[in-house]
């Protein structure tokens, strides 16, 4: 049986108030060890206040070939950014 440790994706919260962000991956036998390894590999210079580890196999990703159908529809929704609308200056701050 292969003894290769499974792969984990590592997410670090850099500072209080920020989201956890994906920083990379590593191998570990289980979740507890993955957290310990993540501390050593990804926070040697105070880069984090919290760590999430997720088995890489548990991640479902959108496929690159779906890029068009998934993301192009929002291109035409030019009214979503507030700058689409001209509001007269007299109205004041809005």
């Amino acid at each position: 049986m292969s003894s290769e440790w499974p792969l984990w994706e590592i997410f670090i919260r850099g500072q209080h108030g920020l989201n956890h962000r994906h920083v990379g991956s590593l191998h570990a036998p289980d979740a507890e060890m993955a957290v310990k390894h993540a501390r050593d590999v990804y926070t040697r210079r105070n880069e984090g206040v919290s760590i999430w580890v997720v088995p890489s196999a548990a991640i479902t990703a959108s496929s690159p070939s779906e890029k068009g159908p998934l993301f192009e529809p929002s291109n035409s929704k030019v009214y979503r950014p507030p700058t689409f609308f001209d509001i007269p200056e007299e109205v004041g701050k809005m």
Partner: protein
Amino acid sequence: MYAQMVKSEATNEDPEKLAAFQARIDAGEKIEPKEWMPEGYRKTLIRQIGQHAHSEIVGQLPEGNWITRAPTLERMAILLAKVQDEAGHGLYLYCAAETLGVSRDELTEALLSGKMKYSSIFNYPTLNWADIGAVGWLVDGAAIMNQVPLQRTSFGPYSRAMIRICKEESFHQRQGYDIMMKMAQGTPEQKAMAQDALNRFWYPSLMMFGPSDKDSVHSAQSMAWKIKINTNDELRQKFVDQTVPQAEYLGLTIPDPELRWNEEKGGYDFSEPDWSEFFEVIKGNGPCNAERMEARQKAWDDGAWFREGLMAHARKRAAAKVAAE
């Protein structure tokens, strides 16, 4: 460099797909693991990133040699942190290579069987404390020359690994130069040790960039794919131009009687290293090749029970958890 003489793989695929791929690279887009890429691009990257990763890992050995013999507790802590960083660099790079469909164990086995290489520089011994200064100053200095432009490489995971690595590297070079300053300002014997370390590490450091590749088809392909950014000669010239004034500040002499400033090209003229020595070292006949491979093989073999044991423990705990639910 950490990846020397990486041969590019030929690609015979749909010309239309190839052209579209090249257009993405030319436009500065990053290629991500699940996206279509030419087989040659994928294989060349596995070879290059793998060799780079192996170099980080094997590169811990010459410096690890001096951790327990550092002159002060502070120097020991600093060197330990530096060597630990190198382990991290190896891990970032292995993970980047794995996104291309090669496993960690396959990469390790390819290193141990001699199928994959690591940088020639780590086959030279570190004989005394001054060598630790010279390694940080020159070897990490040469690595930085190559790694800074690679932050812009076209393959996303490789580029991100390089960005992390570059953030940590200048600590490495500075701690080395700091050791050299201390030695150069010390007793005449200490200064002589610093000079001797420079004498021994100068040409092996120049070899890190690899032989001239201005006419190499492999390099041309890698440069078109943006997995190589500069020619070996460009990087070597930059390294010499940057390092000579640093040696002057230390009051040390670069061991090259031909070294002189060339006003016209705005850089130094310097002697080439002995390339026959370089080819011997990468063939396995350097002063420490056998020792380095033995150390890696021993670590792999001695660690097997530990890797398997932790995995067995994890499986048992997972099974117990399921049973309890």
